[in-house]
């Protein structure tokens, strides 16, 4: 469904995605791991067209994605949940959900069923929400596009554990019950691994490890090398 081949991308002259290749199929869910600043978010931004692609190709459902204008990517089936959530602050919760909605199985009702809190606060403005609610809203907003692929950028970051758990359940439901394809960027490695099928580890803008999640969960020391604080050499 999505294929990246030797992509070099970045902001202006700065290169943050450095020769990155990966493939994913429909129905698959991938955890994108790696330390801060290795280019995980930038990879999602690249898929959404917000970086400058210097070289390489990105194909999406058989079409060359680099040439697709940014606004058409949502219609093409990409749903993005930005890291900073980027809720439209002068729109109400409900407007945030409906303003860009596309027809499909996800509608207001099913979103409210997934996140009952949003229904309670549907008249509130984006900037009046707590962090967790904003996160739910950002996910809900992306789901309302009925995307073939959902890109989640650190959805659990900075949330209280209770809320994070609630979100995890929701994400799990999407994957297990709805068969939603998604890429999950996450700092909380273990949780991410429990949720998704496959994991990819990024280091300095390139893929350095690629494995099925259960395998990795059984062998965390591999992860320690790429994700942990300790460094391989003394």
């Amino acid at each position: 469904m999505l294929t990246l081949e030797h992509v070099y991308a970045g902001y202006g002259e700065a290169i943050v995605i450095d020769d990155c290749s990966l493939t994913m199929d429909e129905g698959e869910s991938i955890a994108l791991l790696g330390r801060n600043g290795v280019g995980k978010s930038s990879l999602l931004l690249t898929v959404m067209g917000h970086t400058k692609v210097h070289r390489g190709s990105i194909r999406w459902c058989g079409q060359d994605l680099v040439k697709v204008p940014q606004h058409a990517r949502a219609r093409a089936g990409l749903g993005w949940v930005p890291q900073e959530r980027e809720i439209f602050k002068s729109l109400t919760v409900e407007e945030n959900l409906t303003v860009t909605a596309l027809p499909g199985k996800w509608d207001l009702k099913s979103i409210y069923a997934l996140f009952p809190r949003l229904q309670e606060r549907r008249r509130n403005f984006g900037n009046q929400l707590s962090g967790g609610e904003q996160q739910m809203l950002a996910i809900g907003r992306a789901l309302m596009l009925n995307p073939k692929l959902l890109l989640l950028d650190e959805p659990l970051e900075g949330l209280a554990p209770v809320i994070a758990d609630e979100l995890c359940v929701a994400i799990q439901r999407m994957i297990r019950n709805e068969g939603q394809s998604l890429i999950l960027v996450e700092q909380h490695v273990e949780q991410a691994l429990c949720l998704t099928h496959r994991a990819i580890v990024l280091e300095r803008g390139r893929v350095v490890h690629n494995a099925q999640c259960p395998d990795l969960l059984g062998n965390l020391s591999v992860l320690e090398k790429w994700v942990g604080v300790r460094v391989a050499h003394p």
Partner: protein
Amino acid sequence: MNAILQTRDLWKAFGGLIVTKDVNLSLAPGARHALIGPNGAGKTTLINQLTGVLRPSSGSVWLDGADITRIPPNERVYRGLSRTFQINTLFPRLTPLEAVTNTICVRERKRLNILKRRFFGVSRCSTLIDEAYALLEQLNLAQDCLVETHTLAYGKQRLLEMALALATRPKVLLLDEPAAGVPEGESDELFEVLNTLPKEISILLIEHDMNLVFNFADRITVLVNGEELVTGTPSEIADDPRVREVYLGKGH
């Protein structure tokens, strides 16, 4: 205490949002100190309070034994506190030579007489220009010092970031992700330069690249949610379970 740079109970809140919580940072002279932490931990806000762009809600910042909390940013530079930026913050239409010479002239402004400062061409300050050139040479920028900055390769621009900070002759240097955005091939030059920085300069390094942090720093502070989680030597930090939790997620 003979710390060169110190914060005392530094606290900063934007409205209800607390971004810096009782931070007590202390750099010994000649220190190689790294500041790490997940995204949104408040590292940039902390830097901005150190350089004076933001004023803390409470607490104080001390440089070389003097309270500089209420001193404007440019005066802090004059007193020896200098920084680099995570995203290149340069003078695109100045040549590196002009940019560094400018920095040195600003530093020496009180020693230049008014004629030299105001009415004679820059080229009259030949000793200062020589110093600028020497510095550029030291940072491998001499070859490119006469073209406009915006035409330089990205890695070279990162080096110029460093050159501008060094040209102020800092006592304390704040390096904000010096390797950010530098592609693999160009980063060696940068690390080399970092390792040759003179020992008299104390350095506070903010960096995500753990290779760099653990190779470079003798002390590390981990910042989480605006709070100092732990400070220690690299090996202490690597073994600290709380740090592992922050970086690897819970359940470890």
